[in-house]
């Protein structure tokens, strides 16, 4: 199939439709509005439904209802909108409902800005809603990867009966790159025999629920969820490693920032430095296995984020004090430049010489 040039947000929509998503409940917010726009035009053509909800909260609860009926369903928003959805996300994790949520991150806190940011790392990985729950979180770095991971996200959501979050930022949502739709749905996904579709007089009623008034029953439910999350931690870590062998310093960055970091890395390596890049693709589970591949030669880790430093906490955890950890980044919607990263690297390496 020939490549087509698509905007990130629109490519997400097309990928979702191809992944069998037939329901989208959304609310307009910059910089992700092209996603609901795309869905409103294209879902009806395949017998699906796009519905503009009265609020982000209503949208995620419509997703809850639709997911409870076994449908492949999606919603998308940007940072403050995702903050509003946290209630529904927690309920879906509790009720074990699959869905895909897309966050095209913008600057915060509060109303913040509409420019690209990565300051929802905590919100994505620590849970903005109540309770002991986890989301599988993918952070693609290109429009093509967005497309591929949207398909994967739907499959994993069904496999684990858990919401899956796909995070981009204003850059990935707005930029256009050529894409190919090649990914195939996973096979052997479990049947959704838990869905509320009407008993048909053939079975006992199904109940979609996250309430356990008996403390011990809730604890058993939490243990069940926790086992599922442990399995995900063992099996779902994804990352991309470049130039780790012999590297003096390894940059840790995801999404758009990883691409900028890659340019900085290339520039410095051409000048004879030995810089590597470790790009988490799953933010949760955090790819600690990737860090086990770091070379003995690597004395420094430089975390680069479009935030004041959030992922750095996870890097500190997996590093276990072995290497020096540094940070640089821009926030508020400012995109870090390659020169900012290069200068920081030189400052670190020249100081340590």
């Amino acid at each position, binding site marked *: 199939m020939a490549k087509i*040039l698509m905007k990130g947000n629109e490519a997400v929509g097309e990928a979702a439709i191809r992944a069998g998503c037939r329901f989208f409940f959304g609310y307009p917010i910059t910089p992700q509005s092209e996603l609901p726009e795309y869905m409103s035009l294209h879902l009806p053509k395949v017998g699906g439904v796009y519905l503009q909800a009265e609020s982000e909260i209503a949208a995620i609860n419509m997703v809850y209802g639709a997911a409870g009926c076994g449908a492949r369903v999606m919603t998308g928003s940007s940072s403050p909108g995702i903050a509003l959805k946290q209630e529904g996300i927690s309920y879906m994790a509790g009720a074990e409902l699959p869905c895909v949520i897309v966050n095209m991150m913008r600057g915060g806190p509060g109303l913040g800005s*509409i420019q690209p940011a990565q300051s929802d790392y905590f919100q994505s990985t620590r849970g903005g809603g109540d309770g002991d729950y986890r989301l599988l979180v993918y952070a693609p770095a290109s429009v093509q990867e967005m497309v591929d991971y949207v398909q994967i996200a739907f499959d994993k959501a069904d496999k684990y009966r858990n919401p899956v979050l796909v995070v981009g930022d204003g850059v990935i949502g707005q930029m*256009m790159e*050529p894409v190919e739709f090649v990914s195939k749905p996973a096979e052997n996904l479990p049947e959704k025999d838990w869905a509320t579709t009407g008993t048909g007089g053939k079975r006992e009623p199904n109940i979609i629920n996250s309430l356990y008034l008996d403390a011990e029953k809730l604890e058993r439910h939490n243990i069940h969820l926790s086992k599922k999350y442990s399995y995900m931690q063992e099996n779902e870590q994804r990352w991309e490693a470049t130039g780790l062998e012999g590297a003096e310093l390894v940059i840790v960055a995801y999404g758009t920032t990883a*691409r900028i970091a890659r340019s900085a890395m290339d520039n410095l390596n051409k000048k004879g430095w030995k810089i590597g890049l470790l790009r988490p693709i799953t933010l949760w589970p955090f790819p600690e296995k990737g860090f086990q591949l770091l070379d003995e030669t690597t004395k420094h880790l430089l975390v680069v984020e479009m935030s004041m430093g959030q992922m750095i906490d996870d890097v500190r955890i997996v590093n276990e004090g072995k290497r020096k950890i540094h940070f640089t980044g821009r926030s508020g919607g400012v995109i870090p430049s390659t020169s900012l990263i290069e200068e920081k690297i030189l400052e670190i390496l020249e100081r340590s010489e």
Partner: protein
Amino acid sequence: MNSERTILAGFGGQGVMLMGQLLTQAGMFEGKEVSFLPSYGPEMRGGTANCGVIIQTEPISSPVVEGNATSEIIMNLPSLLKFEKDLIPGGKLLINSSLIERKASRSDIEVYYIPSSDIANELGNTRVSNMVMLGAFIEVTGAVDSENVFHALEERLGEEKAHLMEINRDAFERGMECARKQRTNG
């Protein structure tokens, strides 16, 4: 590495985004690595609009064109003031001289003054000013083949607006011609 990194900037409504997209799509048709990154937000609604386009043979890391542009298409004065500094030495700057009286301030770059709005008005449609600029741009950079730009434009216009192809082609060719003369004179 063969890499064209272009900033296109002007007022909203001057067809800046369309220019960028046509260029990107033409690059894609040629099997090159391409990216198109627009500015977005309030400035889209009637203010300034800009985008960065990268066309190269190697995979693209950072899609951001900032401080390393090899070329620029500048359609209004605020954009000239904002982006002239982002050109690398030897970079090519194309200025819509119908709307910008000011000259480029740098001497280490190649500058082309294209009266694109005047040429578009001569052709009878001020809206093809962007195609005049794009023609001039292709003439001086050779970033992509002209025919691929037309191919991309055909796709965009569709059958409904296919009748607009002719004036757009004319505008494009007038832009090429204008740039060619300046190059010869220069």
